[in-house]
């Protein structure tokens, strides 16, 4: 883009606006005072006889200065506090994070969780039930002699039946009397 003339000063070989966007970026650097003194002088000499570059530089400098007015807003005073609270939260175990989040959100998040928990408990109960029903007896003596249970049960049932029969017989005259 530059060539050296007889006076050992750099001159522009061609107009930067016609030399592609990348070369024109140097013109931007000139406008933003980011160019080294030597190429900056070369641009200034070029602009003396190039109205297009002169107009470009003037409007670009105006934009550059206008952008200074786009000031940022003040930062919230509790920004760091909030950030460190989040970092602490992340450092805690997962169950603690879930618990804290639920506690912080109040009943809004608890209410829908109640029927969900009930359904889950029910499902768990149904899943466990068949296994417990088919599970082998835990008493080793019973496990060894299943017939023993039947005999005992039969005896107990017969005793119960006998007791009921005696009650029935004893109640019979009273019932007749009531009638």
């Amino acid at each position: 883009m530059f060539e050296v003339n007889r006076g050992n000063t750099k001159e522009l070989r061609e107009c930067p606006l016609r030399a592609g966007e990348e070369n024109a970026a140097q013109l931007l650097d000139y406008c933003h005072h980011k160019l080294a003194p030597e190429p900056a002088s070369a641009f200034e000499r070029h602009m003396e006889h190039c109205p297009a570059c002169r107009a470009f530089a003037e409007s670009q400098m105006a934009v550059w200065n206008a952008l200074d007015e786009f000031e940022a807003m003040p930062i919230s005073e509790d920004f760091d506090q909030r950030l460190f609270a989040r970092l602490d939260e992340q450092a805690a175990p997962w169950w603690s994070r879930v618990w804290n989040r639920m506690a912080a959100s109040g009943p809004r998040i608890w209410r829908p969780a109640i029927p969900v928990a009930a359904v889950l408990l029910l499902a768990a109960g149904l899943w466990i039930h068949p296994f417990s029903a088919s599970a082998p007896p835990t008493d080793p003596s019973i496990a060894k002699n299943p017939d023993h249970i039947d005999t005992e049960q039969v005896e107990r049932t017969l005793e119960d039946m006998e007791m009921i029969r005696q009650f029935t017989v004893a109640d019979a005259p009273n019932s007749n009397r009531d009638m």
Partner: protein
Amino acid sequence: MASLERDAELMLRVRDGCTASFAILLARHRGPVIHFLYRMVQRQSVAEELAQEVFLRVYRSRATYEPTAKFTTWLFRIATHMALNWIRDGKYEKNQESLDPEVGEGLSRQIPDREATVEQKMIREARFAEIRQAIAGLPEKQRAAVLMHKYQEMEYSQIARALDCSESAVKSLLFRAYETLRGRLAHLA
């Protein structure tokens, strides 16, 4: 160079478990990151929320951090990604509709000139709104490039790394962005 060494050194200490070094890094870069994000998304509450995510990511990445690039380049790369994702999620357009109250509030806070007349204040507010809209009207990558170039004074190579593109692509982005801004703002001189 000293800045690079200082930030990288602090980050390496964070990697070794020093939370105090993270607090120093936060104090050094909190402002530039939030201001950059504010100019990107043009809403202070969103900018702060995104900045929180940026610093959380920095902290989470501490174990794998290697000082291969300048710390600020890495930091603004994360910030740019956060902002671009937020904009691309379509949240930017939704927020533009509800932008004015917050901007109005911010404007009155950031120009606390008691000497200025009502007319002068109105002119300033109008200029501010015009600049804000001109920046908002830029395509998101051009916007990010301009903000890093103008306000963070980052070099082309740093912007290129932050935007994940070549240096010549950055020059092209900036040239087109400033061309658009000249068309909209040159009269403000």
